[in-house]
């Protein structure tokens, strides 16, 4: 299976995962507890949940899936434009991976002081 085929396939898989994860995320952040239902979203009202390593793992997983889906989508837009030679394309791929890794790192380290 070529990389192109894998990318196409996983765009749909990650998309499906995001449907579930995003709906759950919305519920968790706005409806799971009474303070949140009141619209009271602060450090204090979410501290208990985000200190829990299980929730942290879920959130990081969610972030990684979203980044893969989004950056892969952007890659497709660039490829469609079709004006890039193979070397520039390799640079673009690298750039997207770097953005992904950096942003995943920002998300992961968000939990570092909890």
């Amino acid at each position: 299976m070529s990389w192109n085929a894998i990318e196409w396939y996983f765009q749909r898989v990650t998309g499906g995962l995001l449907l579930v994860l995003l709906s759950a995320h919305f519920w968790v952040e706005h409806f799971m507890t009474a303070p949140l239902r009141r619209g009271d979203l602060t450090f204090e009202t979410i501290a208990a949940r985000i200190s829990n390593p299980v929730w942290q793992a879920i959130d990081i997983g969610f972030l990684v899936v979203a980044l893969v889906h989004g950056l892969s989508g952007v890659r497709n837009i660039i490829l469609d434009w079709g004006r890039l030679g193979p070397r520039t394309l390799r640079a673009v791929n690298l750039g997207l991976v770097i953005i992904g890794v950096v942003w995943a790192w920002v998300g992961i380290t968000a939990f570092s002081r909890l």
Partner: protein
Amino acid sequence: MTPVRDVVAKYRWTFSGMVAWTLQRVTGVLLLFYLLLHVHTIGKLSQGPAAFNEAIATFRSPLFTCLEIGLLGVVVLHAFNGIRITLLDLGLGGGRQRQLFWTLTVGLGLVVFLAGAIPIFLFAVLKAG
């Protein structure tokens, strides 16, 4: 030669598939930018409660709540059109890509959007007013 009725019907919404594609692209890029901003904001958790609460408070104003409603619309469009695309890719569309666009993406999308947007708007208006 194809009958007149067929020709007219065929071209009435000819490029709805292209509208869908453009929509998917635009909403996708918008959502990516939102994601990057969102992660950046949530990253403030590591700077302690004061910094985090301050960052969150910026986004509680009526203006940002309206933008949030817009975000819901963008998410819903992208998600439902994504489902449509996946159905078509699996060969489950039954040759009905146009109908799928109008009923699933736009129709169902609008329903879900309003189900979320109206309560949020009322809540924000009530809260602010």
